[in-house]
């Protein structure tokens, strides 16, 4: 992976825009624990290696289906959870960012002593979970979050006055009558007023509550606000009000937004750049216009096609995706989307798990399965109770029950006694490659080659 492709916004954003946040190979894995001893038996890979930058004054849209890790990513960026691997850098210069990229690309054991020290120094200065207390406070006040559910994110026992004024109090920005004046100013900015100061959250409508959340986020004049589905609980007419307000505030204060949403029409309207996630990985990123007009990844295409739009022709059929999102604890090899991809090729990384995924709906095929010996993700021996079951599976693997590209990727399905040996062509994970300036996608299909 080249440096440029990792950070497509280098070209997209004007050079004058200050870098606010840089994600480098961010991973968040949640352990699956089992048994009395709570032994870790697996990892749910919620976020699995995500890199992108956010600059001042821009809106980055993060889209994907539920369970793709977009909210977890938001929580890692805002410092609410610590990432398992990778890092989020704050307030870093372009030069330092490039240096970090270069250093982190070197495998750990190959780094020289000097390089190690350099990276540690950079991490300590900029990496959000290694900052010292003072720097961490500085980061916290510059990175605010507006949550999806304004019912749950406002304390029902506190007055609006307390909720919006609290950040100012905590950071010692204001007190006494000045605090009230500042709070009223904030409320006025979001379209509320001093008459709302002494009310409880339950006395407001959904839209007003979201405004209070926004006022609270604005209190300390942050550089970045993470908006986690800010309008998904709201009606369209109220959504329009909130989106207008967010845009207004961004223009006035040169705010950067990380806009997490599943609603493509909202993200198209709001975002400058879009990052599309699938199963914890970025599958495509680029400028909004490029993504919507020239989507490169089949998943982006499917997502765009599936979301209804007023300008659509009503007679055309909605193209649909087969299957469901695979379990993030056992993500597919290669391109993670290949199990549902309409244009999958033999090189997409078909593996042994796909046999089960694709055929588990077939009646009684795996009923006699007694043992599995997994050599690698691409090779395994499945032992059945009797030879007939093993033969049945082998026959199915050579039939039309599985997709043609999967059959092609299948190197071997040999039955020996009661055991069937299944081996697939191994495939590497698909890297993000640059498709156009500032537009990257992770797909084995290259449009230039077609």
């Amino acid at each position: 992976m080249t440096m440029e492709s990792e950070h497509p916004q280098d070209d997209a954003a004007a050079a004058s825009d200050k870098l606010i946040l840089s994600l480098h190979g961010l991973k968040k894995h949640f352990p699956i624990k089992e048994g009395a001893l709570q032994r870790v038996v697996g990892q749910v890979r919620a976020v699995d290696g995500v890199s992108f930058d956010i600059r001042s004054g821009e809106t980055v849209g993060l889209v994907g289906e539920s369970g793709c890790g977009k909210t977890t990513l938001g929580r890692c960026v805002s410092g609410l959870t610590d990432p398992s691997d990778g890092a989020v850098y704050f307030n870093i210069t372009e030069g330092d960012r490039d240096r970090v990229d270069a250093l982190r690309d070197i495998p750990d054991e190959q780094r020289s002593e000097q390089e190690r020290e350099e990276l540690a120094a950079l991490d300590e200065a900029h990496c959000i979970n290694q900052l010292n207390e003072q720097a961490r406070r500085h980061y916290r006040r510059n990175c605010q979050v507006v949550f999806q559910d304004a019912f749950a994110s406002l304390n029902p026992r506190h007055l609006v006055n307390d909720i919006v004024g609290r950040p100012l109090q905590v950071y010692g920005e204001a007190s006494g009558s000045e605090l009230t004046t500042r709070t009223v100013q904030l409320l006025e900015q979001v379209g509320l007023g001093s008459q709302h100061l002494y009310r409880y959250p339950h006395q407001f409508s959904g839209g007003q509550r979201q405004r209070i959340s926004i006022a609270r986020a604005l209190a300390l004049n942050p550089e970045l606000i993470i908006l986690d589905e800010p309008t998904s609980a709201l009606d369209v007419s109220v959504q329009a009000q909130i989106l207008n307000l967010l845009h207004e505030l961004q223009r006035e204060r040169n705010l950067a937004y990380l806009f997490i949403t599943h609603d493509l029409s909202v993200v198209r309207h709001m975002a400058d750049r879009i990052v599309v996630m699938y199963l914890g990985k970025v599958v495509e990123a680029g400028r909004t216009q490029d993504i919507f007009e020239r989507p490169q990844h089949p998943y982006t295409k499917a997502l765009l096609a599936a979301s209804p739009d007023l300008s659509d022709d009503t007679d055309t059929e909605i193209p649909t995706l087969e299957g469901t999102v695979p379990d993030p604890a056992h993500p597919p090899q290669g391109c993670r989307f290949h199990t549902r991809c309409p244009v999958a090729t033999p090189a997409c990384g078909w593996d042994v798990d796909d046999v089960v995924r694709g055929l588990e709906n077939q009646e009684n095929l795996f009923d006699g399965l007694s043992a599995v010996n997994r050599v690698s993700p691409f090779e395994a021996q499945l032992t059945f109770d009797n030879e007939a079951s093993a033969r049945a599976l082998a026959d199915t693997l050579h039939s039309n029950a599985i997709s043609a590209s999967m059959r092609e990727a299948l190197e071997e399905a040999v039955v020996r006694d009661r055991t069937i040996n299944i081996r697939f062509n191994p495939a590497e994970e698909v890297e993000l490659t640059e498709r156009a300036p500032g537009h990257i996608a992770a797909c084995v299909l290259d449009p230039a080659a077609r």
Partner: protein
Amino acid sequence: MMSEGAEKNPSKSPAPVVASVADLQVHFQSKRGIVHAVDGVSFDIHDGETLGLVGETGCGKSVTARSFLRLVPKPPGIDAGGSILFRPRTTCDACEGRGCESCHQTGRVSAGCSACSGKGCSECVQSGEETLDLMQVSNSRMRSLRGDRIAMIFQDPGKALNPALTIGSQIAEVFYQHRSAEVLDAANVDVSGIDPGSLLLKRQAAQQSRTIERTLLKIPPLRSRRNQITAAVDDMVADALAETQIANPRKIMQRYPHELSGGMRQRVMIAQALACNPDLLIADEPTTALDVTVQARILELIHELQQRRQTAVLYISHDLSLVRRICDRVAVMYAGRIVEISDADQIFQDPRHPYTRGLLAALPSATQSRGKLAAIEGTVPELVDPTPSCRFSGRCPNEVETCARFDPHLQSVGDEHSVACFIYHEPPEGSGGRPTLAARSS
């Protein structure tokens, strides 16, 4: 149901009306006064059509839908008036359900009115068809309609399915409840005879049996019959699940709801709702809890099944772009009233009511520049003891004095297109003037 009244009624418009809501009013008792949640809603649903009911949160669309099945809790709900006339259908005699001229290719015709045998009387509103006022019918009749003639798909399949029962037993319930005769027939159990076991089996099939009866059914000769019945019902359930394109239904039947994904659960809900081939399907935001890619497949499925069975669908949603895709007609609700009802194409090409216009303009789109979305200012009014005025006054860009003093009613503005707004029809005498679209500030 009677079959002699099953001949067609040629004077009707293309498809006969399955249900007609007239001036429905459902109010709620609250501490602050009476909330007029649904306040004079009228519309018709024709056989085989999809009627979209759109509106914002709290506009009364769900209450309207739930009133069909009398699922509004009372108290606090109050039936303040109006009626929902429902005309159950039976299989067309002429074509035996295959679809012919006389039944508009639906394969089903209305049952005849039992009081006047098709001549038309006050009970059937002169239609000669069996007509039930869903607000008035007895509880036992209502129970026999629910899930059989009128079915509902709920918004959140995770909550609507019983977590303690397997998928199979939840769907089987529908068959036991409404199709016990067919079940016994399929299981080759003779109910007409004097077999003492048959009565027990029938009672068990309809889930009416007591502990002692269930104990009796464990006696070997009866048990084998019971197993026959279970096998017959399992077949029916598997067929119902297979209809909704669930692969390997036999396996899914043994699973519990939590083992399935959201899309699969919604499919189970659909299978359950369509198990008895209802005349009217009420879909209350069936895809709100689902992802767009799954949503597309569920919509396609509902549409396909509806085409095949010619079921009338009342589709409730807040998503206008979705409604445009799947509905034949659209009714826009605001604050307990229908403000505009028309053909789907018409309403999206030529919206008349200022609220409909506002809703459409508020949808974010690529063409609008950022920060310039046409938001509808203000919030939905509280519906506690409302005064006679246009409910949209206060938020309407075209408002004049008249709007705050008089109540507009739905009136036709053209081909099957009705709007409740003074812009399109004369306000009553002594009003302060008539609003115009030109008064729009934007």
